[in-house]
């Protein structure tokens, strides 16, 4: 008896529960759609930002690499020139010794320590007093890479290296003037 009295009308209960479940399902679907929309929007934003970041980093890398390459080229050029000067100095020394040996007043040749002749021409105080050409080129390259203008580099070469006409160096590094 008590149980029968406590049971509500089954049809309205089913209808009410079905409506609530329907509403819950609908709300859940809306929420899910919203989550999916948000996730897609975030993914799109992330993708766009990642692409922009990758583009920016690639541009920075290219710029840095261009600078480093320019600098390395200048160093390579300087080394090539110094090596040429060293070879020339050694040839002259060899010729002089050969001449002295022929005249009989020179001792037997003794191998020089490697460091004694390294960069000999550039290390000559007379030459470095006004700065070496290799140094001037490296200076110009480094200034160019670090953003100095042609006029600033020209002025620095003239004042620091006493190079009256640095056009050749500037043209080699910056390209010919328009």
């Amino acid at each position, binding site marked *: 008896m008590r149980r029968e009295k406590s049971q509500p009308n089954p049809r309205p209960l089913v209808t009410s529960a079905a409506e609530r479940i329907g509403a819950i399902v609908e709300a859940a679907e809306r929420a899910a759609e919203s989550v999916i929309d948000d996730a897609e929007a975030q993914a799109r934003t992330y993708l766009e930002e990642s692409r922009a970041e990758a583009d920016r980093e690639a541009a920075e890398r290219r710029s840095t690499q261009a600078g480093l390459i320019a600098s390395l080229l200048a160093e390579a050029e300087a080394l090539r020139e110094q090596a040429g000067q060293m070879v020339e100095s050694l040839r002259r020394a060899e010729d002089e010794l050969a001449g002295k040996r022929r005249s009989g007043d020179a001792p037997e040749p003794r191998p020089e320590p490697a460091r*004694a002749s390294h960069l000999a021409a*550039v290390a000559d105080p007379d030459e470095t007093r006004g700065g070496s050409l290799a140094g001037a080129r490296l200076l110009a390259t*480094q200034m160019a890479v670090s953003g100095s203008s042609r006029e600033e580099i020209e002025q620095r070469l003239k004042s620091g290296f006493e190079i009256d006409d640095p056009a050749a160096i500037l043209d080699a590094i910056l390209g010919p003037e328009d």
Partner: protein
Amino acid sequence: MSLAETQTLEQRYLMRTYKRAPVDFVRGEGARLWDADGKEYLDFLAGISVCSIGHCHPAVLAAVREQAGELMHVSNLFYTEPMARLAQRLADSSLGGRVFFANSGTEANECAIKIARKHAHGRGVSEPEIVSFEGDFHGRTYGSLSATPCLAGNPALGPMLPGFRSVPHNDAAALREAVGEGTAAVLIEPIQGEAGIRPTTDEALLAARQACDESGALLILDEIQTGIGRTGSLWAYQQTPVRPDVITSAKALGGGMPIGACIAGPAAADVLEPGDHGSTFAGGPVATAAALAVLDVVDDPALLRGVRERGEELRRGLAALEGVREVRGRGLMVGVGLEDGIDAATVGADLLERGLVVNVPGPDTLRLLPPLVVDDSQIERAVGLIGESLLVFSAA
């Protein structure tokens, strides 16, 4: 708290290592400072070239605040992104190679000294020696101190570390003579800062480079004061005819946060190995985030061009003043040599009274290191104030 009360505390509780000017600064913005009484100053010292992009730059503030709210410290036992990104940026902008982070300039030089000694041992040198110029300032920890001739001679602090010697500044011949097979490194400043802004000549730099090449030693340039745009290029060596093997940086790098860096090019990048060197705090997320923000501002061709142009303007204005004997420097790193009979300390104190902050590194020299963001009107005002002061003391 009044200035007098602060001074009382300082005198009671701080070690007496500094002679401070009687000002209690409480706020800064750009090139301006305010003291506790609200008086405004034009800052032509920038915390000794530390606040190079001006006091409380919004980019640095934002970076520090954001990073401090996320993570402040975990030690070098773990990876942190700002440190790695800063290392990449420093290496790519200079010598390539690798970076060791420190907390200050002197620590950055300690790292460089270790690299030099280990590099020399690798060449079979048993007692490696480091050669510097007289007048160089490399720091106050014992390795850097031993490479700082003007301080290393203090017998009360002796003995200094062995293996250091110095030659007269810009004496290329003496430098060549001093460098030999036993030399680990030539450690010099491209422009001597503490000595009163004295540029190292192209000839001396070339001699150093050549002597190092011949002996196998490393050329280390101390860019602690000259670097991070101070001379109008990101690094001062970029306006010289040499490319060093190692550079050291600090001061402006952190925009006010303490950080130092030793950047080694390919010849020296792999010398140090695990266990050779370390630091608890160095390379921490907050300091490196600040440094990245600083580089975002400074590594800008327009800003660096402005540094060169305003430096030229400043030097030209100063050179025209009565009482000025010579003006030295590059970019916004300027030394003013005063005529005989004018006491630089007196002028410096007078300028502070007039609202201009400068430094006096010697009895006849003023040192000017304004923020790199200083504008034309501030340069004009500073030159005007110095001119007014010198008129008084030239006549005295």
